[in-house]
């Protein structure tokens, strides 16, 4: 059963990447000008998007600035205007420009009427006695046009299933490039669409191979993991933040693009990519004096992404780690479970206290044993306590911060999975437990689904997600194969309107 999809605005990061690919504009100005989108955990949920005055005004500014920048640079301008105008009113040259640039910006050929409407802007070029004035205005209009700002999927209605549409080849090209690059389709992919090469699974898989061979695919999948696992922004000084994010990105690249083996290596890797600062942070020996290198963890209680500082930074609260927030992180991000919000009379703004002990484990257990806090906290806090040996930067610690008399056992447990109450110790224990769990496997695929479709799954999508998960498992969890299976699945070529 195909999934619902609606008009979906490009995120600020997608806009910046698209402007770079379309116009050579590397200013990243959408991230500076446009209001931030809601992040939960991805930044592209179209059901949470809405237009505001702030958006419309900043988009106009973005389009105007980008058009000016493109025309101010002779090389960039030459790429936009593929002909030599014979004068400010050269309609033939302008029409060629509108058609070629329009196809790239709108990700489909323009209709004759659309071209004519853009051509009308050439009167200002004539008035100004400057051909480029027309080019500038056309660009300005295209870059704030809904056909650029939104991924609009219309398709062809299926007579036998009202409300369901078969995507056009161009709409499929757009889905592929935004999924795998977070950007607009390149000319060759639009040509594939024009030549009907995306109409079957083999053609789509060939296009995916070509997209995945480009560095933009690496950046896109690094970003998927950074948003999913909450390290796209970190609350640390720049040097540490950069080192931690580079460490995690390196492991993602290695597993997905270099080794191309079992995806779960991401959570089981026995080595990590660190510079000298980060090696000292983790207490590892043998780091190079400059640059970064892969170093084995050796006897350190670390393994894979969950033991990296970037991921362990998630869920800090009250100037410390929060076992509750880490429990929520594991349940929502790694197991795709929903956690009910605290009751309306809960005080979630102060750390729990205990009358008899300063130790965190006692303070939290006092909290989790009372009243209506009990049921939720008993399912959350023990997960976080299994990770308590790692502070909110991912450094190892043996006791609570500033409390030498409060040793940390690192013992945690998780309930609600098959097998009842499962004990674990530390990030290694949690990774072992998760990578043996079908729930985690399904959640990886579910998060990818949310990221690709720009929304949380509906009940009607579960069969598709389960089928993808089955394929993932049976093909030794090779991630690029999962990506290909996803987009070449027959239902992916259809949409249900909202």
């Amino acid at each position: 059963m195909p999934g619902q999809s609606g008009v979906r605005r490009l995120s600020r990061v997608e806009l910046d990447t698209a402007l770079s690919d379309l116009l050579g504009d590397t200013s990243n100005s959408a991230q500076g000008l446009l209001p931030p989108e809601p992040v939960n955990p991805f930044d592209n949920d179209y059901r949470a998007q809405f237009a505001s005055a702030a958006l419309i005004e900043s988009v106009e500014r973005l389009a105007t600035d980008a058009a000016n920048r493109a025309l101010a640079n002779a090389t960039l301008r030459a790429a936009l205007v593929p002909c030599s105008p014979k004068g400010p009113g050269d309609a033939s040259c302008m029409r060629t420009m509108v058609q070629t640039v329009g196809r790239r910006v709108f990700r489909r050929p323009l209709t004759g009427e659309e071209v004519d409407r853009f051509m009308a802007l050439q009167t200002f070029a004539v008035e100004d006695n400057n051909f480029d004035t027309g080019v500038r205005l056309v660009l300005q209009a295209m870059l704030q046009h809904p056909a650029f700002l939104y991924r609009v999927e219309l398709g062809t209605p299926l007579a036998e299933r009202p409300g369901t549409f078969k995507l056009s080849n161009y709409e499929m090209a757009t889905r592929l490039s935004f999924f795998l690059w977070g950007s607009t389709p390149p000319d060759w992919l639009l040509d594939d669409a024009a030549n009907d090469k995306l109409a079957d699974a083999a053609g789509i898989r060939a296009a995916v191979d070509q997209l995945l061979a480009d560095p933009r695919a690496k950046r896109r999948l690094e970003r998927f993991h950074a948003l999913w696992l909450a390290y796209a922004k970190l609350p640390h000084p720049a040097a540490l933040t950069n080192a931690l994010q580079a460490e995690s990105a390196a492991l993602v690249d290695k597993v997905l693009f270099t080794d191309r083996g079992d995806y779960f290596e991401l959570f089981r890797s026995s080595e990590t990519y660190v510079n000298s600062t980060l090696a000292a942070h983790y207490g590892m020996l043998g780091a190079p004096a400059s640059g970064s290198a892969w170093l084995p963890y050796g006897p350190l209680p670390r393994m894979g992404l969950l033991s990296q500082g970037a991921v362990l930074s998630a869920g800090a609260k009250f100037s410390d780690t929060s076992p509750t927030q880490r429990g929520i992180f594991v349940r929502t991000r790694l197991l795709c479970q929903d956690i009910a919000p605290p009751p309306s009379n809960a005080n979630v703004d102060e750390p729990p206290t205990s009358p008899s002990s300063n130790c965190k484990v006692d303070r939290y257990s006092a909290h989790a044993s009372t009243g209506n806090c009990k049921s939720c906290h008993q399912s959350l806090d023990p997960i976080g306590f299994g990770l308590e040996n790692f502070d909110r930067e991912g450094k190892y610690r043996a006791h609570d911060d500033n409390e030498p008399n409060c040793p940390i056992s690192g013992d945690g447990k998780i309930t609600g999975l098959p097998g009842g109450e499962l004990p674990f110790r530390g990030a290694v224990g949690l990774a072992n437990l998760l990578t043996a769990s079908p729930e985690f496997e399904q959640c990886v695929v579910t998060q990818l689904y949310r990221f690709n479709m720009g929304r949380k799954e509906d009940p009607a999508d579960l069969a598709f997600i389960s089928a993808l998960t089955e394929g993932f498992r049976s093909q030794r969890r090779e991630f690029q194969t999962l990506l290909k299976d996803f987009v070449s699945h027959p239902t992916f070529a259809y949409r249900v309107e909202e």
Partner: protein
Amino acid sequence: MKTLFRLHRRAVLKGLGGAVVGLPLLEAMLDVNPALAQSAAAKRYMVFFDGQSMGADGDTLHNDFVPDTVGPDYDLKSAVAPLGAMKSEVSIISGLRIPTASENGGTVPSGGRRDAFHVSSMSPLLAGVRSPSNTACAGPTSDQVMAALLGKQSLVYRVQADWYLSVAEPAGRDVISFKRDSSNRVVPIISKISPQQEFNALFSQPPSMTDPVAAAKADRERRARASVLDLVKGDTQRLLGKLGAGDRVRMQRHLDEIRALELRIAASGPTQTGICQTPGDPGPDPSSSGNQGTDSSGSNTYNQNLGYSGEEERARHFCDLIHMAMACDLARTASLQMTMFQSHLSMYNLTGQATDCHELGHGGVSGGTMAVSKGIAWHVKHFTYLLQKFKDTPEGNGNMLDNMAIVYALEGGHGHDPGGAKDNSSHSTENMAMMLAGRAGGLKPGQHVVAQGKHPANVLVTAMKAVGYASDTLGEVSGDISQLRG
């Protein structure tokens, strides 16, 4: 006056949103007779918001804000000390409270809030209406009700540039302004945070020029911009017809905002005469420094500029823009959110306190309520700066304040916290206080009024009525505070 009266009725309908009204967005608001607008100074309305409570947890001192003396020439406590001589233009209203669910058998009462604090005061405080959730506002806020009535633009600015916590999102704490959209839903208005963009939007219109070449160029640029927007608007309209129901709602919103921008452009173009002068260009926006946290030694990083993005400069620039946009009659309503609800803005660069605004209330630094008051005083400093600009700008026989009502509101008060079942808590909407500046409609500023048991929305209604609001009710709260009119 007939034109204006007709506008009122239509705009009030829209603002209160009792029914779906098919008027295109903003057209009613901008339908003001220009001759009339010039003959009498426009009335103006503003909300200035401070996202913190008034006292610290466990401190028996509820605030250092409310004067000891009642009536005129009140004494200045530390939280409002920056007012200085400006106190003669500002009334302080104390004794306010928002009722809670716990005092109503667990159900949120009319004009009340949920027991859990942080953001639950938003809907009653700013719109006078109870909300089904902590972070949603269930009715249009006072500034938007007045925007529909007074016309011109409504400025919605936020000084705190970012949320400054890495894992969570602001989730509604970054908004203080809500309106009804064309499908009659109450929707948030995304605040603008870039003084540079706003300067360009408000004042980039070239002044009337004597050089014919420059004038022709400016005229062409203006017409070209209008043609570009018209093309985009037309194609958006055409697209609507091809979309399913859900997409149509989303795209209609986009179209409404394009249309609103067109109307704003058509209505702007300040005359460079008298009190209206293009202000100085604020220059590039203060850079964003990222989230607060700890450094590698475990110390907090407030003193490393994290959790701070030039809010001192941003506040100054936005005050300058609001002042001049109103002096030029480009805007008649404004809401300035200095800090978000539950603000995590670092106070280090602002007050020297090595903590964030929210933690001031929870003992982040020593000093209890007096430490909280230092944080409030930073907000009041900018409030005073803005009032001084209005006061220094002559209008009619007096100054701009004569035609204004400006409300200063805080997220909470101090006292009983129904969520945590504690007293002397910052999670309280007991013992709230507000400020009201301006002399429009017979307001008599410069006094301390004890309005024991009154609702903050009663202050809003008083301010709104002073600038032309015909009703006695905002949301679910009725009545004004007559002493504020002397």
